[in-house]
């Protein structure tokens, strides 16, 4: 927020001490990896023999790499469905659970459960739900006369994966929106109701503007997550030879680096991915100045 708390006197010293461990981790872990990735992206390296200089060849070859372009397209489609889907649904759930309700904490726990569950274990359960002939979903659909659908096949895998990822992200989104909703002073609604702002109008003119900081934060976080989607893709859509029915960019990076002896290409793809996230984040910050309301 713009009006932060300024540390004073002895607090400053403590600030440095307490931030130190995290900064060390960031400096050597994150920053070190970023620098290493940039360097490796300029090399031809198969991991097992000494690398040679490649210049920008790893980048230029991406333009004609059909598997990379496919991964790019899938990642963009994935994000276009996942980001709005996650934000709208988790906001709806937060609105529903932001009231006095019987079994409130039970519902909050249920929605938060995917966040704390292992992606691999959860992925296995979803693979049963999505099963072609023994799956739960096709079984339920059979009652309304819908023929079995191959949910994880080449045609539907992307959307099936989007659903699982949205489901997995609802818990975190809900918590962030609940915090935002509960920070809105009750007086605003009382004052609004005198002027006739109830129901939809109260949401549109009181709630929505006041939770724009939460929406903004959620948009950035889910976008980053969308571009990094990997676990459910790996568990649910991996085909027998290691390819995927919905190969995202991170999946492509993994394949190039570890399966195809092309660490340079993998690193170049990682840099492109990072630049895309950076660019989008800058766009969001530009939008923030226009749309986000801080009181």
């Amino acid at each position, binding site marked *: 927020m713009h009006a932060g708390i300024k540390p004073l006197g002895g607090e400053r010293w403590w600030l440095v001490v307490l931030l130190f461990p995290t900064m060390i981790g960031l400096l050597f872990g994150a920053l070190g990896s970023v620098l290493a990735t940039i360097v490796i992206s300029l090399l031809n390296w*198969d*991991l*097992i*023999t000494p690398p040679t200089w490649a210049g920008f060849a790893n980048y230029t070859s991406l333009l004609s790499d*059909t598997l990379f372009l496919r991964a790019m397209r899938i990642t963009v489609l994935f994000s276009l469905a996942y980001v709005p889907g996650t934000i709208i649904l988790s906001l709806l759930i937060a609105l529903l659970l932001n009231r006095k309700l019987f079994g409130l904490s039970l519902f909050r726990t249920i929605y938060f459960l995917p966040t704390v569950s292992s992606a691999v274990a959860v992925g296995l359960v979803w*693979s049963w739900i999505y*099963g*072609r*002939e*023994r*799956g739960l979903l096709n079984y339920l659909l059979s009652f309304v006369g819908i023929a079995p659908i*191959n949910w*994880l*096949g*080449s*045609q539907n895998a992307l959307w099936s994966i989007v659903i699982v990822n949205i489901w997995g992200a609802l818990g975190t989104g809900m918590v962030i929106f609940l915090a935002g909703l509960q920070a809105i002073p009750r007086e605003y609604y009382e004052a609004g109701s005198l002027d006739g702002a109830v129901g939809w109008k109260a949401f549109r003119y009181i709630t929505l503007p006041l939770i724009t900081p939460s929406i903004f934060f959620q948009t950035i976080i889910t976008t980053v997550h969308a571009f990094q989607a990997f676990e459910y893709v790996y568990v649910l859509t991996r*085909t*027998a*030879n*290691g*390819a995927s*029915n919905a190969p995202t960019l991170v999946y492509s990076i993994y394949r190039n680096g*570890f*399966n*195809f*002896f092309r*660490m340079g290409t993998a690193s170049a793809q990682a840099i492109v991915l990072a630049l895309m996230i950076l660019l989008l984040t800058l766009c969001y910050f530009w939008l923030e100045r226009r749309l986000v309301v801080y009181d």
Partner: protein
Amino acid sequence: MRAPEELAVWNAIVEAFHAANPNIRVKVEVSDWDSYWDKLKTLYAGGTPPDVFAMDAPLYPDWQSRGVLLNMQPYIDATPGMFDDIYPNTLTAYKRDDGYYGLPRDFQTVVLYYNKDMFDEAQLPYPDESWTYEKLREVAKALTKDVDGDGIIDQFGFSPDLWDMETFWSSALWSHGAEVISEDYSKTLLGEPKAREVWRYIAAMVLEDKSVPTPAVSAEYGGDPFAAGRSAMAMSGHWVVPEYAQLDFAWDVAPMPSGPAGRFTSVNSAGFVIAKDSKNPDAAWEFVKFAVGKEGQQRLTELGFAIPVLKSIAESSTFLEQQSAPIKHQIFLDAMEYARPKPTFAGYEEWASIIGDGLVPVWNDEQDLDSTLDEIVPAADEVLAR
């Protein structure tokens, strides 16, 4: 590498090795087959490769061509009679003009597995060497049924792996006079007219007869409907025997069927290689020699996964009369006579994924066969051209 049984066996082999070579210490590391390759590459990247490590023959060219493996030829020359007892078919994959950069430690031939109970119930004779691919299709169709009458097939006639050439389609192609890849490994031949006939034969079983489960359905049975008791026949190597020995139905093995061009199967091996930069090449060689020698091979055979490369052990009671699985193990050895080595070439993993995974939508009835082949064959050739 299948822990933990395999770790126990390797520790036993290493113990025996230590007893014979008190000056050499071997540290065994075992991991599952998938993460094994990631780990190996990471060790290489970190400059600390293991002295001796396992190699899958199809991946050998990718490693050998990068010059990171030790040429064992000087050691082999100094060991008279080294190859006398080894099946020659298993050696070819490791041979290069200037010598061997790896040696096979065990091998796999693919044969036909069948569920005796299902054949008995249908009162059909068991598969034998008279079988053709037409007969296979016919019997597979006869054994396919909807047992509980809910409109969904729950007993399939035949469930081969369609994702990899080794267990079914390379043999089917060869038996019909088609080829997988050109002799110089520069051109994928899976789109040739003769190969397309075989693809259509397979597609007819999957999509018309429905006697072969689609990959999506197969996945619902853990990828192996035969082991799940849902399929009357399968094709596989010896590696499934320890697992199948635990099954609660009767099963056995039969020779591969024959086609218009004869009878073929696939032979593939796992081997040992030595890192070129190993600091202890002599000790590493001693271990490789021990592992492919009589004592190592004997122990490895007791594990039950694979066939020993030493003829004398393969033809001994250790292999032929394995207590855990009283099946006709001789069928695997007989298969050597009509086996062709699984093709191995640089870029194998990427090529196999383009082909194997590329065909999955066809078997799932999501894409047309011919247009898919027109698309994946050139893509596979691009990998070969690198």
